[in-house]
Each structure stands twice: as C-alpha cells, then as structure tokens.
C-alpha cells in the first residue's frame, strides 16, 4: 500500500476545469519518486504538458518563481496546504 494518497484525480479535475495547457508539479523530497506516476497519469488523462520542478519544496512558503514567464498555467504542489505568510517573526 502507498503511504500517502497522491489524489491525481483532484489534479486532473482542476486542470480540466481551468483548461490548463502546461502544468508544473512540485513535490517534497519524500514524494519525488511519485513524479513519474503523476506526470504519466496527468498527461494521459488531460491534454496538458507536465513539467516537473527539480528543486526544493520545503513547504508552502517555497513556491518556484518565474513560472508564468514559461507559459505555465498551473502549479500543483503536493504535501503542503495553504500558508499564511506573517511579516516578521
């Protein structure tokens, strides 16, 4: 049994809903081996091209910059949820 649910169906639903053409997927280190399965499933079930973020994903505070310049419509980030930034700490 897989330890964590990747919930690809939710990703596919969102991609279809917004008609995303190019999607970037971002995974924390422990889930990076799932990238193949996610990319294969998303590309099979939607018309979107999947790009895989190579670098860090320390938390929801750690979003890649500049994706819009490459025409990426949607970033899907696994293993985190909405982060409320606080100024100062």
């Amino acid at each position, binding site marked *: 049994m897989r330890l964590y*649910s990747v919930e690809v169906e939710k990703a596919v639903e969102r991609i279809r809903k917004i008609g995303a053409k190019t999607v970037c997927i971002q995974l924390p280190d422990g889930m990076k081996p799932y990238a193949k399965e996610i990319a294969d499933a998303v590309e099979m079930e939607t018309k979107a091209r999947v790009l895989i973020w190579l670098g860090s994903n320390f938390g929801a*505070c750690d979003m890649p910059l500049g994706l819009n310049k490459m025409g990426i419509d*949607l970033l899907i980030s696994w293993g985190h*949820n909405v982060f409320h930034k606080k100024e100062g700490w």
Partner: protein
Amino acid sequence: MVTVDVMFLDAPYSGSVELSKDTIRYLQDQKFKRVGLYASVQFVNNLERVEKRLEELGIAAVTSRADRTHVKGQLLGCDNYHDSLRLEEDIDCYLYIGDGRFHPLALVYGQKDSTKMKEIVCNDPIQKKMTLMGIDDIKNILKKYRGSLMKFFTSKTVGILVTIKPGQEQLRPALELEKKYPDKRFYIFVDNVISFDQLENFNFIDVWVNTACPRVGFDDQEKFMRGVINLNDALLAQEVLSKDSVFNNLPSATRR
C-alpha cells in the same frame, strides 16, 4: 510574485492514524492529564481515533491554529519560536502525531526561551511506535547558536540573508536591525535558496543573520563558519541572553 494558479494537495496518510501501545503506556505512566496535540499536514485531518482514545484515557487534548497554518492542530517546521503556536492553555506535554523528526523538533526549539521545557511525545502512526524529544536533542546546536548570538552582540559587520521567495521574504523586518543597532554595519544579501557554499566568499562578514526559513538558524548552524542567528533573536539579543531560560542554562554539550 507567483502569478500562476496554485493548487495544494495534502497527500494524506493512507493508513489508520492511531496511538501506539507504547504511547498510551507512557502517557498513563507519566499521569499526563492535558496534552498539546499537533500533527503534520498528512495526519492532521484524520485525528478522530487519536482524540477518541485520549478521551477514553481521561486525557484532555488541547490545540491551536498556529500563525501560518490553515488548519487547527497543524504543526509546521517554522513553528519554532515561542509564540507562533498561539497555544493558550497550560499542558503537561506535547503529543505529536506524524513521522520524522523535522516537525516535532520545532516544538523543542520553540521552548528555548522558556524556564522549563515540556517533553514532546512523538507518536508515529506508520512505524506504530513512540519516541521522546527534549533538550538533549538540540543542546549541542543551541550551544553553537548561543555562541553565535554572543558573537553578533559584539560584531561590527553583519550579513543579513534575505530570500526572494514570496512566502519567506522578510526585507522590511530585516531593516529593523539597522535601527536597533546603529553602531553595526549591516550588508544585505539576496538569494533564492541560501547558497551555503557562497558565504565564505564574503570574508568581511563577522556573523550572519537569517531572515528566510526560521529553521535555517538552527538546522544549518554548522554550515556557517562564522555563525548564524535568526532575525527574531537578533532583534532581541540582549533580552534573550539575559533571561532565566533553558537556552541560558544548557546542560553540558556532548559529542554526537
């Protein structure tokens, strides 16, 4: 700013989230009556069985929604300073539900300025076992950190590290340091992910202040030849160093 649509998927744990036998035995043996219950995002939405078991054991579970989280009871690795959890109630210990050491260590670091440290009981639903965390897990790092803080106090030339990541960028709060310490010369360095291998090229810096992820000051302490402290401790250096706290009464350092 990130201007593309962003979707988060929690990746919840697929198995059953329960207290292990040794966790239950320990909580009972210690006669704990009130625990601060926290979990990482993979487990936090599935704590019903844990809460029910605690209730059966006569143990009250209290929790809070930490500053930067979206869900009550969720623990982030950056909840590592005293007031970020916003926990109002007094507790006998913390009970962390999840795997790994990264998240529960935040609860240990978060108590460094307290007079006494509450134990962290870590219940791992995957391995079905319990581990304990406390001052012994961080005392060697805190010794170095304390040395860096004392060095900051006397340093004239300080490097401030600011990240461009929107979720972590803290340039404006970093500038407060210049007002607080007019006798020091601060140089501000900008990066995406902190390039530890570049630090020594700037050999005129006496000590570094981290304003990116608050865990960098602790977890990456050994990567800074000249020492590093976190922004919040830099702003309150004198107060932090003069408190009657765990931080100022550390047990003897041991080799790891």
